[in-house]
């Protein structure tokens, strides 16, 4: 878009040339090629907290105390200093090379009490109101006694508390507690925030709780999908309970008290003749799809026997693993078998997984695919951005590179496609669905059309990675493809011990040329470097 790569020339050119329609953000981002975090302060002295992330509007840096009981929030600011001499272009004075030149502590709040700990991999941010959602929980029990409705094989946590905080002053606005439940909390996996709606997947009781975060700071229950689909299903069943057989009646009344039933603890659904609401919707959808595939009645019955009844118990035994919003009314639900529920996605291709699109308003299943479905993969390839539903309020999050909006990311995807068989490739790609929310950094330095970098060492997704001693290079995509800046983790001279395993994580500010790189080893304190534009 700009003819020159010189920043002054670009500014002059910007005065006279308007960008192509709809590309104003992309054109503004081109200036990030000129303003890069090229200067590093190594091993900065900072408080011993575990730094989690910058909020997506760049106002706060979230960190937790080492004992995982307190939340400490900082405000990022730019260092400023004054020099007595005339010519001050040399190195920063010592007093500027401190953590508190870059960050001001706003407050510290104690979230966890008693035997609870803050889950430090979990944090969700509601940009419109500056609300943050945090979770504290007690330790999980792996051999949990199975109670009436709980799925056996899933661990149980005594107390899981969701805290809603106003980040401006650290006030706890509301809490929601789950008892004897299990929610996958690492890296926001079991929870999805879209706009003001929060979807929490209770793996143990196979329920999707939908909560709304109101502007007043209240967490309001909207619905609970699982056993019942519509809000009045329970009322309807209870009022008609007099017509049900006695054993089912007792099942219905005991379900809320979680009393252990006597026999048949192995098969969850053998206890009750009613399958859960969502399961019934799913089975009827599969039935109708198989029924409508054939036109002849005899062929229909044969097809049903082969495709539906033969696998009936497998379909009944499916459990909800993960959920995401596609828009305010539609959920994408991943179903799988119990033993595959908590596995990392790497091993998932041995287990069958299924995806269903569920409309919360009409309580209908709209689509159902296996994880090797080509059709679902085609949607994923063409409309990947729609699997990251963006609320109206977040501006920065709409421009994260994906293979649907960036030619270089698409080329990378094609490269991966060539290496494996198509079915394996489809399973691998669909294994990343449903996406976790707020797991990618909106920093323009990760924009694939601006910079090329090694995705194995650093990327927009905030996960810990294997650390290397040599710096990670960011090279411009445009001609001339020059090296613009390097991010080096660990101490300047490299660590003395080359053999200990080191992992590093990176926190990039959403729009300032400021980044933190944290290198951790097992036994020593983490070393933190600050990268910024001097």
């Amino acid at each position: 878009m700009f003819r020159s790569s010189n920043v002054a020339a670009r500014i002059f050119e910007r005065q006279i040339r308007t960008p192509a329609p709809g590309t104003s953000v992309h054109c503004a981002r081109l200036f990030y090629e000129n303003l890069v975090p090229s200067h590093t302060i190594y091993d900065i002295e900072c408080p011993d907290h575990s730094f989690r992330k910058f909020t997506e509007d760049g106002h706060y840096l979230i960190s937790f105390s080492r004992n995982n009981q307190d939340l400490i929030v900082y405000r990022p600011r730019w260092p400023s200093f004054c020099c007595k001499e005339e010519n001050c272009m040399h190195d920063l004075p010592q007093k500027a090379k401190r953590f508190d030149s870059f960050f001001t502590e706003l407050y510290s709040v104690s979230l966890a009490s008693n035997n609870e700990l803050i889950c430090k991999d979990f944090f969700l941010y509601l940009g419109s109101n500056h609300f943050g959602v945090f979770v504290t929980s007690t330790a999980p029990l792996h051999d949990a006694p199975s109670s009436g409705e709980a799925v056996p094989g899933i661990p149980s946590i005594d107390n899981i508390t969701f805290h809603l905080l106003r980040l401006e002053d650290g006030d706890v606005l509301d809490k929601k507690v789950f008892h004897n439940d299990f929610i996958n909390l690492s890296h926001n996996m079991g929870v999805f925030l879209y706009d003001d709606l929060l979807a929490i997947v209770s793996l143990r009781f196979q329920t999707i709780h939908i909560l709304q975060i109101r502007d007043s700071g209240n967490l309001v229950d909207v619905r609970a999908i699982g056993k019942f689909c519509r809000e009045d299903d329970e009322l309807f069943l209870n009022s008609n309970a007099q017509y049900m057989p006695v054993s089912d009646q007792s099942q219905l009344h005991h379900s809320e008290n979680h009393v252990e039933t006597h026999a048949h603890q192995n098969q969850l659904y053998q206890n009750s003749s009613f399958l859960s609401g969502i399961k019934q919707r799913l089975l009827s959808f599969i039935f109708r799809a198989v029924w409508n595939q054939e036109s002849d009645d005899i062929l229909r019955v044969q097809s049903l026997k082969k495709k539906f009844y033969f696998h009936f118990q497998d379909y009944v035994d499916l459990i909800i693993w993960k959920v995401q919003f596609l828009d305010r009314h539609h959920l994408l639900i991943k179903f799988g078998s119990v033993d595959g529920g908590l596995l990392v996605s790497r091993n998932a291709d041995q287990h069958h997984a299924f995806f269903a699109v569920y409309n919360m308003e009409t309580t209908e299943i709209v689509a159902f695919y296996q994880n090797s479905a080509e059709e679902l993969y085609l949607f994923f390839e063409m409309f990947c951005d729609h699997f990251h539903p963006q609320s109206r309020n977040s501006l920065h999050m709409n421009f994260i590179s994906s293979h649907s909006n960036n030619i270089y990311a698409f080329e990378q995807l094609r490269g991966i496609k060539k290496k494996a068989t198509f079915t394996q490739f489809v399973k691998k790609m669909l294994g990343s669905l449903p996406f976790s929310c707020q797991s990618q950094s909106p920093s323009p330095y990760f924009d694939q059309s601006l910079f090329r970098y090694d995705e194995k060492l650093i990327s927009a997704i905030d996960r810990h990675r294997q650390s290397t001693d040599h710096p990670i290079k960011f090279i411009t995509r445009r001609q001339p493809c020059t090296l613009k800046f390097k991010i080096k983790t660990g101490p300047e001279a490299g660590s003395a011990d080359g053999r200990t395993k080191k992992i590093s994580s990176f926190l990039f500010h959403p729009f300032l040329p400021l980044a933190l790189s944290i290198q951790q080893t097992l036994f020593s304190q983490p070393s933190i470097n600050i990268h910024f534009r001097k």
Partner: protein
Amino acid sequence: MGSILGDLPSFDPHNFSHFRPSDPSNPSKMTPTTYHPTHSRTVPPPDQVITTEAKNILIRNFYRRAEEKMRPKRAASEFLAQEPGCKQPRASMTTSDTP
């Protein structure tokens, strides 16, 4: 000049010296050029309202595929029964009146 913009400074005071601002007591006789359609074949229905589709393209595609799958297939025998009704004899086409 007495215009509503007032006496703003200008680069060259002789610019716009021939300009006479429109006087409300003496309306201009020029009417702006207007365009009229020559036919009414493409007039929208009077109650037409154009709104943005609420469902995004991904969800529309899911619904479309689901509808295709759920549409019950007609048995082959049903197709055979219908065919004679679909075909029109040639003579009737040539004798129909042109609109």
